[in-house]
């Protein structure tokens, strides 16, 4: 899981163009949306695409997605359970 979390942090920085941040700047439990990193609905959609492309997980409900994306911790554990790749 530690590896996955690190992988996710790198992906988020790359996919969401957060070049001004490094992996150390993103904690496992801090909120990703609104406060914390301050990501928004468009970022959520990008993460949905990433989930499909890199882990084979299809998310159709943006509201369900919100809960999964709450933090790196949440996201990693969801991927762990559901990944096809």
């Amino acid at each position, binding site marked *: 899981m530690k590896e996955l979390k690190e992988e996710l942090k790198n992906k988020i920085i790359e996919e*969401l*163009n957060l*070049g*001004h941040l490094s992996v150390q700047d993103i904690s496992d439990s801090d909120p990703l949306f609104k406060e914390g990193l*301050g990501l928004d609905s*468009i970022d959520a959609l*990008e993460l949905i*695409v990433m989930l*499909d*492309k890199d882990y084979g997980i299809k998310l159709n409900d943006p509201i369900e997605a919100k809960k999964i994306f709450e933090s790196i911790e949440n996201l990693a554990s969801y991927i762990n359970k559901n990944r096809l790749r």
Partner: protein
Amino acid sequence: MNKTCYINSASSISSQNTFRNNNFFEKIIIHKEKIANAIEPNYSKIINPISIRRMSKITKMGIATAKSALKKGNIMMPDAIITGTGMGCLKDSEKFLKSIIENNEKFLSPTEFIQSTHNTVGSQIALNLKCKNYNMTYVHGSISFELALIDSQLLISENQANNILVGGIDELGGKIVDDTLVLENDNENGINVPLSEGSHFFTISSRKNANSLAILKGIEIYHKISKNDISNKLNLFLKKNKFNKIDVIILGFNGDIWDKYYKILTDNLFKNTPQVQYKNISGEFSTSSSFGLWLGLELIKKQNIPKEVSLNNIKSNKINTILLVNQFKGTQFSFVLIESII
């Protein structure tokens, strides 16, 4: 009854070193390649990193020049934001299109699609300023910028706005640019200046202030004009605006066969007028005439015509009134007349 429209400030990002550079005339770059990229500033000082991360080049150029023009014009919040763009957000449009085709409609980026709408730059400027006022985008090839100018004139005469932010913006794309070059190089009659990009914003106001540069005296657009009629149409335009003497004429020569329209003017009606070109230094793009206007204002400020843009080496005692003429492949004609007030 048309109210006076003052041009109070101007800002440029182009393939020349024009952003916040008062000494641009001293070092004009002569581009040798077929494509000339814009010289961009360090945006991190102008736009915050959370917003900037998603922005395409055209949006960054647009916001930087918009903010600069507003600052120079001493305006906190414009009453209207009007943009003209010929091809819109080309890079993101192409990326999205390419992904659709190559990935068979899978794993597409929402950001690229959102960024591809033509009014992205105008709306991002509004978002950045939290400006809830009138916001419009014109997308009509080489008169996109002039349509934006006409709208700002109209808003002022309707008493709907006093301070307007108006700009012309275009960016180079990817394959579309390469394919354009192929078309242009197919025969000897194609465009001979680099294909380029840029963003030029101006503040137009119903009120004169200490920074005011010039008055936008008149502007006219035409879908088509025959070769035999261009001098006549120009004469009518000047007459309508009560001008019979022009100090400088700025023309959109780009090396292609339709430069003949400009030649008719430079050989006859404006034979003895200082003639200036700009696309040899700005490159050609749909809204390159906004560079032309920016250059016109620089000529007024500096009262000097750099040799790189001078066509006939005739000097003017005072550069007061400037006429700009542009067209693209025999359509989308524009006449713009400005008069100095400095």
